[in-house]
């Protein structure tokens, strides 16, 4: 079955801000990308980037600042716009990219990965509205 997702469509997903639900968000994004005829590698890139953005939302937001992650997938004629939004106060992307030892693991690779696999990545932090990671992947020519 091939479903058509029209231009102008917006798909919004709300998941609990818990590690166990990140796979729901990334697999949904991968499914949408597949239906938009992205190549297999690009589908996996989008899946990875959404997973990393959700990981950030889990890592950088204190528990008291919201229990939900919103993932929006906006279908435009020439690109897929992905927004991953949380209610946190945000973080310094440059600092986050330096890598942080956290107990016995090291964090900080996620932003590097997102920037590498997506065409554009913008991180907007607002103490009132939260943090939005906005990513763009250009669609293949029709």
């Amino acid at each position, binding site marked *: 079955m091939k479903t058509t997702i029209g231009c102008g469509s917006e798909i919004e997903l709300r998941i609990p801000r818990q590690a166990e639900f990140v*796979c729901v968000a990334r697999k949904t994004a991968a499914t949408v990308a597949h239906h938009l005829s992205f190549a297999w590698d690009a589908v*996996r890139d989008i899946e990875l980037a959404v*997973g*990393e953005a959700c990981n950030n939302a889990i890592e950088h937001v204190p528990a008291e600042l919201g229990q939900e992650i919103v993932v929006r997938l906006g279908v435009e004629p020439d690109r897929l716009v992905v927004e991953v939004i949380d209610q946190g106060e945000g973080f310094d992307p440059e600092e986050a990219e330096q890598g942080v030892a956290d107990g016995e*693991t*090291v964090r900080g*690779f996620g932003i590097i*990965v997102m920037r*590498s696999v997506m065409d554009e990545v913008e991180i907007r932090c607002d103490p009132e509205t939260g943090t939005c990671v906005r990513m763009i992947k250009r669609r293949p020519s029709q």
Partner: protein
Amino acid sequence: MDTQLEIASRLEGAETGVLSLSGEVDVSNVQRVREAVLELLERGAKNLVFDLTGTEYMDSSGLGVLVGLLKKVKELGGTLAVAAAQPRVKRLFEITGLNQVFPLCDDVEGALKEVGA
């Protein structure tokens, strides 16, 4: 509930642990990976081989755990190698520059040689 991942571990000789990861490694199950490795270290392993033949997906949380474990095995005087990473996973190492940190071997046999087993 976590993402589907099967973890198999074994000792190869007295000092080398081999961990095979089949499925998807993500933020929901990296702790299980770490715990499996710590168990191998408790059983006497000081060198580690990560067999990624069946690893279909890995994100940066998986890399973060590997980097933490590398530090730990170095403290024990050992080393760590990665075997049979699939193209998507190998790309993740390249993007982050960790291909310069971890030996990426074509297969488990090569990784065992790399760690001196």
